[in-house]
């Protein structure tokens, strides 16, 4: 609540879909203004992801799905090929797909072509709190994207979140940095301010660094001849 978040993602595999009134997580989220975004965490390929998404749609009555396919259990790196396949299929089935991916600009364009509703590139490995290691690629993605860009994974501090928003991200997804803080509520409030500050700075357009000095051999003197 302190973070002002409007969207919270929950892993399907973790919630009790049959009795979601008594589920630990769902019971806390159900009666708030917060929208639920089920995610497919745990699935290993496109087929499993599509199945999980359909299950989520039925149980939670939302066609929004955060697509996470990480066959690798150690670093939880997203599988680009299966993610693209699943996005294509889910978009056809009418889902609002938000795929978690590497900060890969070409993959983002391919996902757009496949009908994705957003892209969620990572800043650094999930849970690492390493910050925006992929910033140069995030910038390319933001510059050329026609869908919202949500920076997902790796955001370790409010300044990381502010930076992501400053360069033009539409949102950030944060968990570990708040959850493992010794005061999660205060940390959540700090993130809220950081996100708002970053967005404001982006909208106000950052000042730029100084231009080069004018070179001494003029290129346009022929126009005076």
């Amino acid at each position, binding site marked *: 609540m302190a973070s002002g978040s409007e969207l919270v993602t929950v892993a399907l595999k973790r919630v009790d879909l049959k009795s979601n009134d008594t589920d630990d997580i769902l019971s806390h989220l159900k009666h708030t203004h917060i929208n639920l975004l089920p995610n497919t965490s745990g699935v290993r390929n496109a087929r499993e992801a599509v199945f999980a998404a359909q299950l989520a749609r039925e149980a939670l009555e939302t066609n929004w799905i955060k697509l996470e396919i990480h066959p690798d259990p150690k670093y939880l790196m997203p599988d680009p090929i299966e993610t693209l396949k699943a996005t294509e299929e889910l978009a056809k089935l009418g889902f609002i797909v938000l795929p978690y991916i590497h900060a890969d600009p070409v993959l983002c364009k391919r996902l757009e072509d496949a009908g994705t509703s957003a892209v969620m590139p990572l800043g650094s490995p999930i849970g690492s709190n390493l910050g925006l290691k992929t910033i140069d690629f995030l910038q390319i993605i933001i510059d050329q994207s026609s869908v919202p860009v949500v920076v997902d994974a790796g955001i370790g501090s409010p300044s990381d979140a502010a930076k992501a928003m400053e360069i033009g991200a539409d949102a950030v997804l944060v968990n570990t940095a708040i959850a493992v803080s010794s005061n999660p509520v205060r940390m959540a409030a700090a993130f809220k301010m950081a996100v708002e500050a970053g967005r404001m700075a982006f909208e106000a357009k950052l000042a730029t660094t100084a231009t080069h000095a004018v070179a001494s051999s003029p290129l346009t003197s*022929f126009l005076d001849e």
Partner: protein
Amino acid sequence: MNSFSDVFQSYDWDKTRQSIYAKTGDDVLKALSARKRTLEDFKALVSPAAMPYLEQMAQLSQQLTLKRFGKVIQMYVPLYLSNECNNICTYCGFSYDNKLRRKTLSPIEIMQEVAVIKDMGYDHVLLVTGEANQTVHVDYFKKVLELIRPHFAHISMEVQPLDLEEYQELTPYGLNTVLVYKETYHQDDYKKHHPKGKKSNFQYRLETPDRLGQAGIHKMGLGVLIGLEDWRTDSFFTALHLNYLEKKYWQSKYSLSFPRLRPFSGGLEPKVEMNDRELVQLICAYRIFNEEVELSISTRESPNFRNNIVKLGITAMSAGSKTNPGGYIVEPESLEQFEISDERTPTEIAHVIRAQGYEPVWKDWDSCLTQ
């Protein structure tokens, strides 16, 4: 968004024009120092307020061009296949109402022309026609492509706009690049300059690049004819179009041209004059706005201007061009589209390019790469 029309309709010509002319020196400085330039920055760069900053723009344009392209200039030459045309275009030598003898090259004549072009050293050819759908149609283009494909690494086309299916039919024949110039984005003026023929359909021409993108064309060329309308506003719409296309058809490459209206037999005087200084401004503005787009300059421009523009942001140049069908050898006296202004041979131009430390490039594609 289904096509550029949707974007285009949300803009008003007069308001856009006013906002360009309202730009200040501060706006220009902001644009020059930005990390990446927006459409508003582009407006500042083509505005009258940018003129005092021309040298700075030229320096920046040169740096950005070197960063992306290195010291190379792509060489290309037009091969006019036909001057038959059913359109009336007030500014064009091929206009239907211009009563002169018409000609469309036969396969034998095409090969005679090709031999001359190959002798000049070219491996990239630009096929040009008017719009005469009874004789110069998709089947004709297929035959021409089949005929010349073994002789060129890269084939570009500047012909009438076609349907999506037609572009899809032509790509397997080795078609790599298509140029379709909008002439002007001013809707009423467009109608005035194109009173008759298929070309009078503003919408169809406006949406042609969308069809090219959908057909997966490797590269497409945009531009307006400078002299018909306020060039700053028209160039803004070109930049807007480019911006839209790049995002949507992200696998295509783009090139821009900025032809200034030239005299031709029976033609009209330009409504708007653009001087050399302004053309340099526009070239630099395009480069500063978009670091990846190819910028091409034809033999419409004078030798002195072309010599000096090599280092300013240009990436492609034609030389030794004839603008009439059969102009190289078959029928040198046939009706030409416009008078060229730089008559030097490709060898002479290559020398000029090398003298400035740049390399003329005759081949930058291979026909085996176009399925």
